């Protein structure tokens, strides 16, 4: 399988840079997976799990929680411009659980004045974190 270059950058650091075989993540249009020679596209990220299928001999899969940003896909390289992204070991599971419960509660109660967009976003973020750990 052909490999391509994946670069994940955040405003603070270069998060990941290596040759990979495939990469999967969640976008505003749904979940997508990308192989080499994809049509040039720019997509916007929705909170979800980022799966990186490495091009090494052991075919390792790396996971990360990707929350916000956008992706520039070109034939031979993919650049993920992430505003927020975390490796599994950077995630506090307890906190993620709690914020998931909180967001679910807020959404189900439907009190007036609840910021639905914000609650949904925080629920999605918490779900992404939990999914990465499991």
């Amino acid at each position: 399988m052909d490999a391509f270059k994946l670069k994940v950058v955040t405003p603070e650091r270069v998060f990941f840079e290596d040759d990979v075989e495939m990469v999967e993540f969640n976008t505003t249009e749904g979940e997508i997976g990308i192989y080499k020679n994809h049509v040039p596209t720019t997509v916007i990220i929705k909170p979800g799990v980022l799966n990186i299928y490495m091009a090494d001999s052991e075919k390792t899969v790396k996971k990360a929680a990707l929350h916000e940003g956008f992706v520039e896909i070109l034939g031979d390289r993919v650049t993920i411009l992430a505003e927020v992204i975390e490796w599994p070991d950077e995630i506090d599971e307890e906190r993620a659980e709690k914020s998931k419960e909180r967001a679910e509660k807020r959404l189900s109660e439907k009190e007036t004045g609840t910021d639905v967009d914000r609650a949904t976003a925080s629920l999605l973020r918490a779900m992404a974190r939990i999914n990465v750990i499991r």
Partner: protein
Amino acid sequence: MASMRDIKRRRQSVESTQQITKAMKLVSTVKLQRAKQRAEQSQFYFKCIYETVNSILSKSGTINHPYLKENGSDKKAVIMITGNRGLAGGYNSSIVKLVAFNEAFTKDNTKIYAIGKKGRDTMDRLGYEIAKDYCDVIEEPTYDDARKICNDLLTAFESGEIGEIYLAYTFFKNTVVHEPTLLKVLPVNLDETSPSLEITEKHDVYAPMNFEPEDEEALNMIIPKYVTSLVFGALVESVASENGARMQAMDSATNNASDMIDRLSLLYNRARQSSITQELTEIIAGADAIS
């Protein structure tokens, strides 16, 4: 000639000032290293974002998007990034000069979004309107801070409260060269680019890019990110520049103090010698008188 005691006292006071400036220089050197590293690490992100925005706009020149055209308001917002503290040479005053001496910014049409106490106080004294004040941000700027500032600005822009957004910051070229820079942020104008981005290598001719979602929606989401990254970049560069400027200022202050101490030591020794000579003359004169 000043008395020996006066000279000695003066020399001691210069010595203790020198100790302070030396310590400040060391502190800002360490801070500069850190800030420089941060600025370098974040550079890549801005280049990418800039290139992406550039490619979207160059291919969709006809798009009629609120962020790309004037909204009729003649108010100008200036984000002014200065330090919270002085003793950094011309760092703070050159940013103030950049805005206050610019004829485009009059007291009536300009709103200052101040980051940094020094700039805020000076502009306030000059009679400009301070719309918002984010002075605590400059100590340890994070991307979240930049996002908050941008949200405020974009809301004001969308409501027509302000018509143009400028960014006044200090571009960190290298450790010794820092350039005060004024950058137009909104409406987006890509001809006028940040000097931090000029070095960008040109992409091999763009393959036609697709967007999901459609161009206009994508712009809606990407432009706030673009503005945020500009502000964040300006913040980290300014912090690096501030520490660089302070390091230089304190270095020359330490050197000047050394010069002063040398001069005062010379004066002191001369005064000491002349007082001994005088004493001797008096003693000899006294002895002569007796014999």
